[in-house]
């Protein structure tokens, strides 16, 4: 343990001296994330509701209904001229004899899908109104014809829907931050020493391999966790200031117990992620080689992390006990406030056990000449 602390302190000192790294894990998330949220918020609010212009020749039931909606109506006398004219989005022509409404629309328009959806919506409104009117004329109650309506009510008390969205998004972001913040330092920790030739200097001293590995593991974890905490603070600032222009403020409250378990889960996940990097770093001859091994794992983690964004997805349910997925789903449950301690402990223990196995394997690599002196 003493040697682990010595290695940890030395590594941490080196990390703290690296100003570029410090700025990357502290200042950049604090500035970048709120700025990103602000611009996304500005962009989404600037996408204004676009009024559509509907041209018609003869006023009819459908056109009369459209008058009640927020559309611009344009009366046209000559249909042939109207077809060449582009001041409208849609041209509506009703044929009572054929009992048909023809809607002319240019499918090359950028907002074609939006216009089509709105025309479909107006038509279903027109259809319902017409049926109800006709039923009344036949003295039949609409309730006798229509099935019961579905009314969906939100039973969530503690959090509004934006908070729920954030509860699913945060674990994914935490997973990505933990990995990306640790990547550089983790790979440099051993592969970097191999490149510099200083690993031999360390190995020829009377220090146990596990002490070296754990010292480097904890130092890399410090970077990974610090970067993640600053990124979360960045998100917190952006959310508190409502940079995303949400309609209502996010009400994100966590009980102290939930927060405690969430912190433990994040720490154990960080330990697992960093041990993967240390393992790769031990095997790799150079940092560049290590990057080649890390990238596919990073992509896999992103894919697995996406399971948190789609709660109830087959991945999230079928592979709930898999590494990463168990932690991500555990975090989601903790953030939503509906979790079982057993699930959280299982995720934590599996992270720690897997990390220990990887560290043992790395220590084994340290004693393998074919790996340490691989050319």
């Amino acid at each position, binding site marked *: 343990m003493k040697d682990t602390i010595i290695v940890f302190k030395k590594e941490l000192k080196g990390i703290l*001296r690296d100003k570029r790294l410090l700025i990357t894990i502290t200042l950049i998330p604090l500035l970048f994330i709120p700025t990103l949220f602000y611009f996304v918020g500005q962009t989404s609010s600037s996408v204004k509701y676009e009024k559509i212009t509907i041209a018609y020749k003869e006023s009819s039931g459908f056109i009369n209904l459209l008058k009640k909606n927020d559309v611009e109506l344009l009366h046209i006398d000559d249909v042939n001229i109207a077809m060449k004219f582009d001041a409208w989005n849609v041209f509506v022509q009703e044929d009572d004899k054929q009992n048909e409404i023809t809607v002319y629309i240019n499918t090359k328009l950028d907002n074609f899908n939006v216009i089509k959806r709105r025309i479909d919506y107006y038509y279903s409104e027109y259809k319902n109104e017409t049926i109800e009117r006709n039923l009344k004329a036949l003295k039949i109650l609409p309730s006798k014809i229509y099935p019961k309506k579905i009314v969906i009510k939100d039973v969530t008390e503690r959090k509004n829907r934006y908070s729920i969205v954030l509860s699913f998004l945060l674990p994914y972001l935490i997973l990505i931050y933990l990995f990306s913040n640790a990547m550089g330092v983790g790979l440099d920790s051993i592969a970097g020493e191999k490149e510099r030739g200083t690993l031999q200097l360390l190995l*020829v001293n009377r220090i146990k391999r596990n002490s070296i590995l754990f010292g480097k593991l904890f130092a890399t974890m410090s970077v990974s966790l610090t970067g993640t905490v600053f990124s979360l603070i960045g998100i917190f600032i952006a959310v508190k200031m409502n940079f995303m222009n949400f309609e209502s403020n996010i009400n994100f409250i966590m009980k102290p117990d939930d927060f405690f378990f969430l912190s433990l889960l994040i720490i154990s996940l960080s330990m697992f992620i960093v041990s993967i990097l240390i393992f790769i770093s031990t095997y790799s001859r150079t940092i560049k080689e290590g990057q080649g091994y890390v990238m596919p794992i990073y992509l896999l983690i992103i894919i697995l992390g996406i399971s948190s964004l789609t709660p109830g997805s087959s991945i999230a349910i079928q592979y709930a006990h898999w590494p990463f997925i168990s932690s991500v789903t555990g975090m989601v449950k903790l953030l939503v406030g509906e979790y079982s301690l057993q699930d959280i402990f299982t995720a934590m223990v599996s992270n720690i056990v897997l990390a220990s196995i990887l560290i043992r394997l790395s220590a084994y690599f340290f004693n393998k000449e074919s790996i340490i002196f691989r050319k």
Partner: protein
Amino acid sequence: MIELDNVTKIFKQKNKFIYACDNIDIEIGEKQVFGIIGPNGAGKTTSLRLISTLMNPSSGKILVNGFNTVKDKMKIREIIGFLTSEMRLPDNYTPRELMKFFGKLNNMKNSDLSDRIEFLTNLLSLEEYVDVLIGKLSTGNKQKTLIAISIIHNPSIIIFDEPTAGLDLSAAQSVLRIINIMKDDGKTIILSTHNMTIAERMCDRLAFINEGKIIKEGHIEDIKELYGSKDLEEIYFNLI
């Protein structure tokens, strides 16, 4: 005393077996400076890695002060210092911090460590640079720092693999002066080099190594007498 008894080290490379060390038999007495001379790829670095416990022999055994390099690695690591020309120090530490780090790893007490840092700083003329970041030091001072780190725990056996490689004349002279001081201090030194002048100036005994085999070993004067030449370089080229 260091004894290499029929030591062989085989590497497998692309279905080919390479004998980096082939039945090496050497005895290195205490307080000696022993030179290992040979061209690149002769097996010098592998021999030194075997003695310093970084590698295990494929066959044969190595004893360092009676300790086996395979079974008693930790005990040997306490009594040896190791330096190779491949080593490059990290830029964001000072020589003092690195000396402290390696001193603590070697279980040195704070007071002993401070005294030792003070002593080595003076010995290596690093007073001005001991608190300067490595990245800002000259190549010579970086090499001096490496020497300081490798001998911070005052080992009785010091292994130097090409300690003057890549250094300018003045820096190389400083390094050789330090090796001489350590020799006078009664340390056992193993020095690998392909510089005959350095070998002749520094070593008591020599071993010529080529293709993993010891081709001649003995006192410098005996070797010169045996081959009837005063020029060690000439003998070397005749041997390999």
